[in-house]
C-alpha cells in the first residue's frame, strides 16, 4: 500500500486553482523531493496531506487514512517540519519541549526517554538541552524541530523547506542525519526545497509541480537529462590564456580577465569534473576551481518552458 496517495486532487482558492488534478503515489521507504516555484502548489498539497486543508475535490490518503476523517490518526503516524514555523515551546528549555511532545503523543515514558536520548545524540544537541528555544541559533533550532517531529517514530516525515536559511555546515549535518535515520528506520521522506543539494543528497525521486499539476516524476539524473541542466566548472588559471575550447564534452560559457577565469559547462552524464580538470591542467597551470551545480530554479524553469508554461 502506498504511504501517500492522491487521486485527481484539486484545491481551489478564491481566484486561483492551487492544486489541479494531482495524482501521485509514494511508496513506503522512498525519499521524494517535491519541488516547484513559489505558489506552484507544494504547501497546499502538504496541508491537504496532513488535514490542515480540505480538498475541493479528489481523494487523499496518508498512511492509508483520509486526513479529513481522521486527522488525529494521521498525526500519530506522520511527522511534519515546517521550516518557517515552530513546533517547540519558545519560552522553555529545549528539553521540556521534548517532554511535552512525548506526553502529547502519549509515549511510554521510558521509551520516550530512550528515543529522545538517541535523537539528541545523533543530532548533537546535548549542550543545548538546557537552553530556552528562543535562544537557539537557526541551525540548532532546525535540528531540534526535526528531532521533535521524529520523537513519535513516524512512518512518514514531511519536511517543508527544512534547510532554508541554514549555513553550509548546518545543512550538511541535517542531511547526514536524515540519511542515517532513513537507513536505520526506513522512514519515508517527502521534502520541499529550493536547494538542489537537498535533493541530490537525500532524494531518490523527484516530483516537479507546476501550477498545481505534476510536471515531472522520476530520478534526479533523469530530471537533469530531461532539461539538459549542466554542471559548471569555474577554473582560475595561473596565467592569462586563450579560450579553453576543445575540452571533450564541455562547452565554454565565459572567459574573463583575458582568460584568467574560464567557465566550462559539462554534462554530468557524459564526463566528470575530474576528467575535465585533468584535461585542462595537463595544458595549463590551474590556480583554483569551483563547481556550480545546476540551480533548482533553473531546472524548474526549463521544465516549465518545456511544458509550455512559466
Amino acid at each position, binding site marked *: 500500500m502506498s504511504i501517500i496517495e492522491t487521486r485527481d486532487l484539486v484545491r481551489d482558492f478564491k481566484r486561483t486553482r492551487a492544486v489541479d488534478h494531482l495524482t501521485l503515489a509514494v511508496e513506503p521507504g522512498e525519499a521524494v523531493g517535491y519541488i516547484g516555484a513559489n505558489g506552484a502548489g507544494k504547501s497546499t498539497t502538504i496541508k491537504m496531506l*496532513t488535514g490542515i486543508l*480540505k480538498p475541493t475535490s479528489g481523494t487523499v490518503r496518508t498512511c492509508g487514512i483520509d486526513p479529513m476523517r481522521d486527522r488525529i*490518526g494521521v498525526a500519530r503516524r506522520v511527522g511534519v517540519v515546517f521550516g518557517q*514555523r515552530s513546533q517547540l515551546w519558545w519560552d522553555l528549555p529545549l528539553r*521540556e519541549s521534548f517532554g511535552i511532545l512525548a506526553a502529547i503523543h502519549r509515549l511510554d515514558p521510558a521509551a520516550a526517554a530512550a528515543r529522545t536520548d538517541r535523537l539528541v545524540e545523533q543530532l548533537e544537541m546535548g549542550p543545548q538541552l538546557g537552553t530556552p528555544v528562543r535562544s537557539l541559533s537557526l541551525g540548532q533550532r532546525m535540528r531540534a524541530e526535526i528531532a521533535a517531529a521524529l520523537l513519535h517514530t513516524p512512518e512518514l516525515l514531511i519536511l517543508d523547506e527544512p534547510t532554508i536559511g541554514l549555513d553550509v555546515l548546518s545543512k550538511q549535518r541535517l542531511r547526514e542525519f536524515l540519511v542515517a535515520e532513513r537507513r536505520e528506520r526506513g522512514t519515508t521522506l517527502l521534502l520541499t526545497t529550493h536547494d538542489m543539494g537537498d535533493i541530490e543528497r537525500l532524494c531518490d525521486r523527484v516530483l516537479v509541480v507546476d501550477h498545481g499539476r505534476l510536471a515531472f516524476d522520476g530520478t534526479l539524473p533523469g530530471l537533469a537529462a530531461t532539461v539538459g541542466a549542466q554542471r559548471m566548472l569555474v577554473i582560475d588559471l595561473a596565467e592569462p590564456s586563450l579560450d579553453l575550447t576543445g575540452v571533450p564534452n564541455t562547452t565554454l560559457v565565459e572567459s574573463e580577465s583575458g582568460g584568467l577565469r574560464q567557465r566550462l559547462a559539462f554534462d554530468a552524464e557524459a564526463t566528470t569534473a575530474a576528467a575535465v580538470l585533468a584535461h585542462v591542467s595537463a595544458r595549463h597551470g590551474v590556480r583554483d576551481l569551483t563547481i556550480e551545480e545546476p540551480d533548482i530554479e533553473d531546472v524548474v524553469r526549463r521544465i516549465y518552458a518545456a511544458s509550455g508554461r512559466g
Partner: protein
Amino acid sequence: MADRRLDLAVRLRPYRVLLASRAHAQMQYRTSFVTDILGTVGVGLAEFAEVWVIFHNVDVLGGLDFTAALLVFALSNLAFSLADMFVGHLDQLPRYIRAGQVDAFYVRPLPLLAQLMTSDLSLRRVGRLSVALVALIVALTTADISWSTATVALILLTIVSGTAIFSALFTTAGGLQFFLVDGAEFTNAFTYGGQYAAQQSQQIFPDPLRIFWTFVIPTAFVAYLPAVAILDLPGDPLAPTWLAWCTPLAAALAWALAGLCWRSGTRHYQGAGG
C-alpha cells in the same frame, strides 16, 4: 471504577503536562509575574471601586443594596476571572494563526480546541480572582442569608456554571475569529461587555437589554439571578426566582452555540488556508 479513574488520568495527561509547562514558563520571569498579578489585583479593585462609588451615593440601585450588589459583583468576577484564566486567550486566535501555531496544532494528535485552550494559562489572573473571592466571603458573611444545603448548592452550582458560561463566550469569540480579521474588538463587546452586564442588577437595564442579557447572552445567570435567589429578594418580574437554578441549562445552551461556532470556524479555516 478505579480503572476508569486511571483511564481518565491517562487521557488527560497531555493537557496536564501542557498546562504545567505554561505555569512553569510564567514562573521563569518572577518579577514580571509578580507585577502582572498586582496589575490584575488593581483591575479587580477598580471594578470594585465602581460598586463602592455607586453605593456611596445611593442606598439601593435596581433593587439591590450594597451587600447584595457586592454578592453580584463577587459571583460575576469569580466566574469571569476563572474563565479568563483558562480560556481567555481564545480570542487571540488571529495571533496564533499568523504565527503558524494553528498549523502546528493540526499536526498533533489532540483535538484543536483542547490544544488551544491549554496553550496558555494566565496565572496572573489569580490577582483578580482573589479580589472576587474576598468580596464573596465578605458578602456572604454580612448578608442576611437563611443558610441551607440548597443555598450552598446554589452558590457552588453558580460558580461552576458561571465559569462555563463565560468560557463558552470566549470560545464563541474564538470561533468567530476564524471569520473576522482582528475581530477581537468586536467580540470583546460580548465577552467583556457580558462581564460588565453580569455584575449589574438586571433591573437597571431597559427591557430589551434585560431580555438580551438573560436569554440571548445569558450573563444574568452568572450572578444576578442566583444572588436574588440566595438573598430571597423580589428580583426581576421578567425572570422568576426558580430561573436561578437553570444556570447549568444556560451554560449548556451557551456551550452548544460555542461548539457550533467553533466547528464552523475550523471548517472555514480549512477552507480558506493559513
